């Protein structure tokens, strides 16, 4: 089964996503709570899919979008799905330009999350 890395600064969201994904048989190979962490763990674990919170604190000058850029730089084929709340249009656009393959909008439906992940894996 595909390995997913969940990146979100809120434990709440990480747990929510991880519960949704685990239920459907995905393996959560890592959770990261900031962009820097995500970049490091991606290099180490090479997950199949990453869900990336778009608004996160900057650590070492890396926020959510910074992490997308960095991960794509290291692995141009990286499959990153942004997780955003409504009203974050410009950030989502920026993330897509940086190489994010899709986005999901909070509050999310479990079916929507699974759809996004399944499609990106095709």
């Amino acid at each position, binding site marked *: 089964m595909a390995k997913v890395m969940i990146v979100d600064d809120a434990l709440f969201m990480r747990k929510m996503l991880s519960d949704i994904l685990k239920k459907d048989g995905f393996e959560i190979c*890592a959770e990261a709570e900031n962009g820097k962490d995500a970049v490091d763990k991606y290099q180490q674990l090479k997950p199949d899919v990453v869900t990336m919170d778009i608004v996160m604190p900057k650590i070492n000058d890396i926020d959510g979008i910074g992490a997308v850029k960095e991960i794509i730089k290291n692995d141009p084929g990286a499959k990153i799905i942004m997780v955003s709340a*409504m009203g974050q249009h410009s950030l*989502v656009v920026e993330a897509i330009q940086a190489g994010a393959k899709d986005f999901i909008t909070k509050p999310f439906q479990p079916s929507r999350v699974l759809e*996004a992940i399944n499609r990106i894996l095709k």
Partner: protein
Amino acid sequence: MQDSYREIFLSESQEYLKNISNCLVKLESKPGDLNSLNEIFRCTHTLKGMSATMGFEKITQLSHLMEDLLDELRSQKRAVTSNIIDSLLSSTDILEQLIQDVRLKQDSNIDISLSLQGLKKFLSEEAIPPEEKITLSDIDSIRLNEAEQNRFKQAKEKGLNVFKLKLLIAEDCLMKEARAFLVLTHLKKIGELIQSVPAMEDLKKERRLEQPSISAIFSTKENQGTVLQVILNIPEIEEVSLTAAEMPPLEAQAKTQLQEPSAYIKKIQSMRIPVQRLDRIMNLMGELTIAKIQLVQMVESLKLASLDEISTTLDRLTSALQDEIMQTRLLPASYILDSFNRVVRDLSKKKNKEVDLEIIGSEIELDRIVLDEIGDPMVHLLRNAIDHGIETPEERIAKGKSPRGKISITVSRQKGQIYIEVADDGKGIDLNSVRRIALERGLLTELEAANLDEKKILELITLPGFSTAKEVSDVSGRGVGLDVVKIRVESLGGRLDFETKPQAGTRFLLTLPLTLAIIKAMLVKVQQETLAIPLMSIRETIKLRPDEIKRVQNFEVVKVRNEVIPILRMDRALGIAANAPLQSHKPEGSGLASDSQSHKPEGSGLASDSQSQTNKLIPLVIIEYEAKSLGLVVSKIIGEQDIVVKPLPSFVKKTKGIAGATILGNGRVALILDIMSLR
């Protein structure tokens, strides 16, 4: 929703709220502080996401609007003003109440409409047009301009496929513009976009879509099937039509990329543990320590050489374990200090004073319970400083001071004790008015007033019923005075000291124990009972000849180095004299010292172990509380020891004179003396 989510939601949202109001205060003093603004935005944003997921509509609504406003501040469409900060702060307060309701699992009847209106006032008008249901056939075809027509032709000359795309975005898609942008981005990856409505440039600028649709002409070397697959792989698309503008599709190969499987390691870096569980662990640790002491003593006394090594190891390990567990109870002082920025801001605003707060050492860790307990007293000290200490800007200028007052809180840690200093640079405490007020309130006599030294006069302000404020203000005053602060600090086993310099300010120093779970105590015997007296409140221990105890009116006192100290016979104070062999005593109530009327100074009733010690020296433990000393007559002084404090069950909680219990190395229970209730 499951309770486990609720728990996380509650604890995380609390942190976010604290951050928000902190940063708001910072932002107000430094409107250009982008870091604070970003932090507020992030927290509000996350809070909104979490509450939406949990289905807490009011929280979602309010935080959403706050976020909108913050976004405008961030993109500099709007300047940060004091009014905006006020509105955001009061919205944060409402959020806090709403979250409180979630905590209490009650339906919230809090009205958020005022807050919403308050925020909306600042937001630029931007009506959201209602969206009508449209179909593919409603999408207009694109007309190409000359340059675009040229590109069309060139593409065909190169043998590329040129497609016409019409696409409807799902109605329930929450961010249609971003979705449209994503579709176009994916198309661009496999070809060249000749023209699209909406254009990518417009989508970048967040121009709202007139219709939830895309119409585009683009060229690609991929065939129709591949292109369709790419598009259909994008979620939230309702309908697509892809037609070739001309030419039969060329052969193309689909590419799939395989991820390399690699080893993975899963590590949990931190976890949340309920406080009650930590308390239980601490308690068990205490009992383990006691069992260990028993074992070690037994091994020693039985001279079991074979067990020597293991008992030493056990001793070392339990000590290490105890240290580790103690660590888990500690939290950085910032937990309470951070919220003081807001306190100082609000109070000084109310008082029309300008005050800067400086916090040093907020990273120092304190016992969670100590932190919980000192919050209120510290707020009171801040109130005092702002109310009575710091002058108005005009007064300050007249005195040649900077118009902005300054309060600094400094936390430091030395030798198992925590020091918290709260200092202001205000006008200081006026000794003469303290003297006058104390006279007025009958807290001291004329004679005392004339004879007391400055230090003693100053200490009067910590007496109950003392307040130098001319009238009760709604901020400080109102019955709660420094006396309460002092009592609270002392009940934690701490001390409150202070000093003041006229026109230069006042400095309060709180000395607190690092932890409340284990305290240093002096063990004494009162008759057959073992009693623990917190070492922090002990001034000294001495031994008296029975005839040194004198009577003044109805009280027994001793003279120690020219100081007259009242004494209290612990056996009677605690009512444990009964089962001891009393001889020369008249029957008497077991109350506190004041009723020891019929006691003979050289009475033998206070001797514990035998009847033959009439002339033996009497051990006296002198404790100090509220700047007064009191001598406790005990039967025997055993010595100092670290004890694990165990709270008493509720049915004996109100027992006067006893603060808790501990279990000693020999397995016996010792009561811990409550100094505060001996007044």
